[in-house]
C-alpha cells in the first residue's frame, strides 16, 4: 500500500515539473522579448533613416543639378567657360583672371562637400572680379542673371562711373563646385 506515497511523489514531481517549465518559459520569453524589442528598435532606426533619405530625394536632385563636379573642370580656362559670361552679355579680362582663394563651404559648421573657387581679375592686388557691358542696364541685367545662379556667390557690387564704359566690380565673387 505505497499508493499514497506514490501519489504524493507524482504530485510533487508534476508540480516541480510544471514550476520548472513555467519558470524556464518565463525566462526564455523575457529573453526573446528583449531581443524582439532590440530588433524592432533597429528596424525603426532603418525605417526612420529611409524616410529621411526619401524626404531628401528632392534635395539630392537639386544638389546634383545645381553644382558642377569640381573634377570636371581642369583649370582657369575651364572655370571661365563654366562661368559663360558671354551668355549674360558680360565681358571680362580673361587673361588676367586669377584665383584668390579656394575654401570648403561650411553650413552650420559642417562641411557640405562644396568648394568655393573665388576669382578676381586685373593685375596687382585687386580683390574684385570686374565685368563690363555697353550700358548700365545691360550690365546690371547680366549681373542679375549671373547672381541668380546657385553655383555663383557674390558679396558686393560696386559701380564706377568715371570709366569709358560701365564696369561692375563684383566682390567676393566665387564659383561653387561640388567635391563628388
Amino acid at each position: 500500500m505505497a499508493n499514497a506515497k506514490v501519489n504524493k511523489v507524482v504530485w510533487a514531481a508534476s508540480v516541480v515539473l510544471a514550476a520548472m517549465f513555467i519558470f524556464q518559459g518565463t525566462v526564455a520569453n523575457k529573453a526573446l522579448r528583449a531581443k524582439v524589442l532590440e530588433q524592432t528598435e533597429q528596424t525603426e532606426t532603418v525605417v526612420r533613416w529611409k524616410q529621411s533619405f526619401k524626404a531628401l530625394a528632392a534635395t539630392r536632385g537639386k544638389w546634383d543639378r545645381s553644382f558642377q563636379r569640381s573634377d570636371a573642370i581642369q583649370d582657369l580656362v575651364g572655370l571661365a567657360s563654366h562661368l559663360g559670361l558671354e551668355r549674360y552679355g558680360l565681358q571680362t579680362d580673361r587673361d588676367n583672371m586669377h584665383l584668390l582663394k579656394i575654401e570648403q563651404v561650411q553650413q552650420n559648421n559642417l562641411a557640405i562637400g562644396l568648394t568655393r573657387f573665388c576669382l578676381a581679375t586685373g593685375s596687382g592686388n585687386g580683390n574684385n572680379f570686374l565685368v563690363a557691358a555697353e550700358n548700365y542696364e545691360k550690365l546690371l541685367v547680366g549681373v542679375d542673371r549671373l547672381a541668380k545662379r546657385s553655383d555663383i556667390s557674390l558679396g558686393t557690387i560696386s559701380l564706377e562711373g568715371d570709366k569709358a564704359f560701365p564696369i561692375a566690380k563684383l566682390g567676393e565673387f566665387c564659383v561653387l563646385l561640388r567635391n563628388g
Partner: protein
Amino acid sequence: MKNSKIVLVETHDDLKSITSRKTVIGGGQLVFATMQARVEPPKGFVAQRPREAAPGLMASFKKNTPRVYIHVHPALIGMEKKARFALLVDSYLAWGTSWARHARAQTKGVVAVIGGVEQEGRQCHVDVLVFDEGRLVALYDQELPERGDFRFQAGAEAVVAKIRSDYPGVKIKQAAPLSNWDLEGVEYIGEAGLAGLKYAPITRSLNSHMEFVVPAVVAAIGIVYNFGAIGLAWNDWGSAQVGFSEAVNDPALRETGGIDSAYIDVMNQRRIFMETPRKQDVLPVKVLQIVRGIGVLPGVQIIELRLPAPSVSVMVPGQSAAAPIINADGGKNHDLITADRGADAQIRISMPKSAASAIDQAREVLGQLADGTGMSLRLTQDGVAEDKERRVFTIEGFIHG
C-alpha cells in the same frame, strides 16, 4: 437511520436487495479496515484511499500520522449507479478525531468506540476503535453471536474487558447503529457516533489512471505555458527579423552603403544651404533701381555706387541733425534706421551746382532719389564737396523689405 432510503448493508447478500438508488452504509463483512499497511486483505477486496486517523488538516502530510487502510468487497464495485456508499468506519474515525469542541470533551484522553452492525438473526459484527487524544491507536473487529443467543452477553463483556485490560483508564462508548447493550461502564452515544458520516466514493483501484490525471494536467499546463511563452515570443522575434530584413533590403541603403546618419545630416545642411535666401538675389536689382533713380536727375553723373555699403559709416549719436534722413514714404520707416544700422548702399554722385545752398540742393536731390529708388537716404558726414561748377554728394541708402 429512520430514513427508508438509507440502508445498512453488511453482507454480499444485502447488496443484492438494493434495487433503487439509495444511500448505503457499508460495514460488517463488506469492509475490511486495518491500521497495518501490509496486511493482506481478504481475496478480491479492493483497496481504497487510506484515511488519516489523527486530528488536524495537516495530518495527511505528517509521516507519523496513523492511517486506516480500507479494502471493500468487490461487490461494491459497480454499484455506484445504484447507491451512494458511506462507510461506518469513516464515521467512527470522524467522531474520534474530531476537533470540534463538543466532541473534544468526549474524546479527551483514551477513548474506545464500539460500533458495528447487528441485525435480526445474524452474527453481530463489532468494530473497536481506540483513540488517544484523538489519534487512533487501535482498530480491530470481532464477530459476536447474534443478539438473541445466550452467549452474546458474555461475548460483549469480553470485548469490553479486553479493551479495559489493553488500555487501563479508558472511557468506552458504544455507538449506533448498534442498539444500547447497557454494558457496565459503557456510555451509549447512539447516533452521535454517526454524525461524521459522509459519502465515500468507491474506487476501483488506487492505481487507476484517474489518480494521475490531475498531476498530469498540472504538469501539462506547465509544459503548455512553456511552449506558449517561448512559441509566441519566438514568432514575434521571427517577424521582427523579417521586418528588419525587409527594411534593410532597400536600394537607397545599398546606394549609401548602410545607415549613415552623417549622410542625412550633410544632406539636410545642403538643403538648408540651397534654401537660404541670398543677398545676391536682390543686390543687382537694387543696384539697377538706384541707377535708374539716379538717371532721372538732370546732369547727374555716377561716380561710385556700392552695394552693400562699406561698413565703416556707422552713424555716431548726435550727428543726426547734421545728416538728415530723407524718407521715400514720408518717414514711415524712419524708426527702422537705428543708430547701429549700417547703410545698405553707398552712392556718390556729381551734379551741376545749383543756386541753392549745398544742404538745400542735397535735400532736393535726396528727395527725388528717395522717390525714385524707394530707399531711405541720408547724406554722410562731410557728404558734400564742391568746386566752381559741380557738387559731389556722398549718400547712404537704406533698403526696406
